[in-house]
């Protein structure tokens, strides 16, 4: 058991170093969904003797997008802090989520009209995460109550936010389902049951693969401790995803100086066209 003690000790040091930063950033909720921290206030606190708290860290608190960026791995690790012995009456489960900035989406459905397929109906979702990944220690349906899921917005369908316009279709659920299925298929959303490794009911670790088509912004990492279907503690920290170097410079130029950017694009195009033409003429002369 010495190795476990060693890991615990080093983890503890890492966590202590990370905690002040986390506590400070937690005060400003950035995402659109209700922050778990704020909902906790109205709930009856769990009895103090059963209190278990999560302490955690992320392998890096920022992801840099460079020209050669093709995805990134992040590791979210942590431990359960408790003053009393591990309650033996129920199983401890851990759920970790990573969520990208929300963006609005228009979902359209095609129908056959006069023999051709035409977009007829549409539903507009106000905010849907641009990336959403859930990792758990077990089957999500079995370890988490539906009411708790709805409150904390943990499972993939609940992470999608309200409709941006009055809905004028009979079956809006089909539309959001189609959106989720499409994003599950392309990997933008994913659920990995058993994606969190929990050791001795104390240490846990989850690996996340961030895809290459990542958009810039503040991502949100959340960790939930669950017993008997109820969330007993949660933790949340921001993860910055930023363009750097040439990527950042081009992006800023395109949005801050669009005319200059447009002229630059044209100049590059014209110069390349002229250059190729001149090069081929030189080649032919030889």
């Amino acid at each position, binding site marked *: 058991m010495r190795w476990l003690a060693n890991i615990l000790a080093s983890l503890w040091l890492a966590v202590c170093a990370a905690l002040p930063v986390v506590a400070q950033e937690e005060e400003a909720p950035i995402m659109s969904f209700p922050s778990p921290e704020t909902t906790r206030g109205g709930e009856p606190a769990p009895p103090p003797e059963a209190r278990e708290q999560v302490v955690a860290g992320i392998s890096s608190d920022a992801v840099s997008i460079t020209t050669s960026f093709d995805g990134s791995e992040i590791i979210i690790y942590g431990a359960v802090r408790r003053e009393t012995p591990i309650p033996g009456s129920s199983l401890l489960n851990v759920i970790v989520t990573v969520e990208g900035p929300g963006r609005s989406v228009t979902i359209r459905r095609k129908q056959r009209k006069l023999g051709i397929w035409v977009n007829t109906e549409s539903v507009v979702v106000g905010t849907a995460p641009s990336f959403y990944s859930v990792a758990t220690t077990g089957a999500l349906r079995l370890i988490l109550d539906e009411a708790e899921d709805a409150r904390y917005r943990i499972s993939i369908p609940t992470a999608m936010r309200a409709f941006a316009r009055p809905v004028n279709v009979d079956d809006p659920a089909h539309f959001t389902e*189609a959106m989720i299925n499409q994003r599950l298929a392309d990997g933008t959303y994913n659920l990995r049951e058993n994606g969190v490794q929990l050791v001795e009911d104390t240490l846990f670790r989850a690996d996340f693969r961030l895809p290459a088509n990542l958009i810039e912004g503040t991502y949100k990492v959340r960790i939930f401790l669950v017993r008997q279907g109820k969330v007993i503690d949660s933790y949340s920290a921001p993860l910055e995803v930023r363009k750097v170097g040439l990527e950042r410079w081009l992006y800023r130029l395109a949005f801050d100086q669009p005319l200059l950017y447009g002229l630059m694009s044209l100049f590059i195009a014209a110069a*390349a*066209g002229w250059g190729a033409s001149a090069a081929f003429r030189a080649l032919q002369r030889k």
Partner: protein
Amino acid sequence: MQIYLPIAEVAVNAFLLIGLGGIVGLMSGMFGVGGGFLITPLLFFIGIPPAIAVATGANQVVASSVSGVLGHVKRRTVDFRMGGVLLVGGLIGSALGVEVFNLLQKVGQVELVVQLSYVIMLGVVGSMMFAESLRALRRTRAGARAKRRHHGWIHALPFRMKFRTSGLYLSVIPPLVVGMLVGVLSAMMGVGGGFIMVPAMIYLLGMPTKVVIGTSLFQITFVTAFTTLMHAVNYNTVDVMLAVLLIIGGVTGAQIGTQLGSRLRAEQLRILLALVVLGVCVKLAMDLFLTPENLYSLTPGII
């Protein structure tokens, strides 16, 4: 080799983009089409958001048409005067097209209208061109000389002008109208419009085939440059990194295409272009008529 595109916010294989640019550039040099009608759907297929595909496609067309037109200038196969008249019409049409586009967007049927007009126009133009060039090919095989068609009503119009390079004495109204139509298409579909303009110049204006391609490229260069700038300033949808990769392939392809084009006979060239146009038409028509794999589609943003 994956490369991250700053504006499109996706990572794509760099060599795939260079290859796509090369194929489109080849067509551009051979046929005098900008290739927008190919590059835009191709970019869409590899996962570039549609708005960015349209705007960046226009930027790539600027490069390949500059590259193509310079070769033609050297060989004196550009009718600058005709190109200028077409360009004036093109810019007017482009401004009109933006208005129509906005109107359709409000009604929510922009996709359908664009797709339908693609199918109809490519179908009509492609089959007309195919039939005509087959006939021309048969005539030359039989040994008879192809005779220049005469359009009585076009020659009866006022405001006539001398187009020396084309050897025409023609009213400015038909080229202005052709240019305008192409400008409307350019703004609405993100294409240069060469696939419409080349046949129109041959069959409607009666221009000699050897100056048609250079003149068409000349007009396309300026119309797509205008379109690129409009998109960059109004919608921030030009991805210069994407454009550069496409351009590397495109300008090389355009040069090779110009060389190949000068070795092929005009009738053969026209048959090839007709086949490409018909191919794209059939593909688009199938998308409209066949049951789609996924009935639902996602578009970012509130539209």
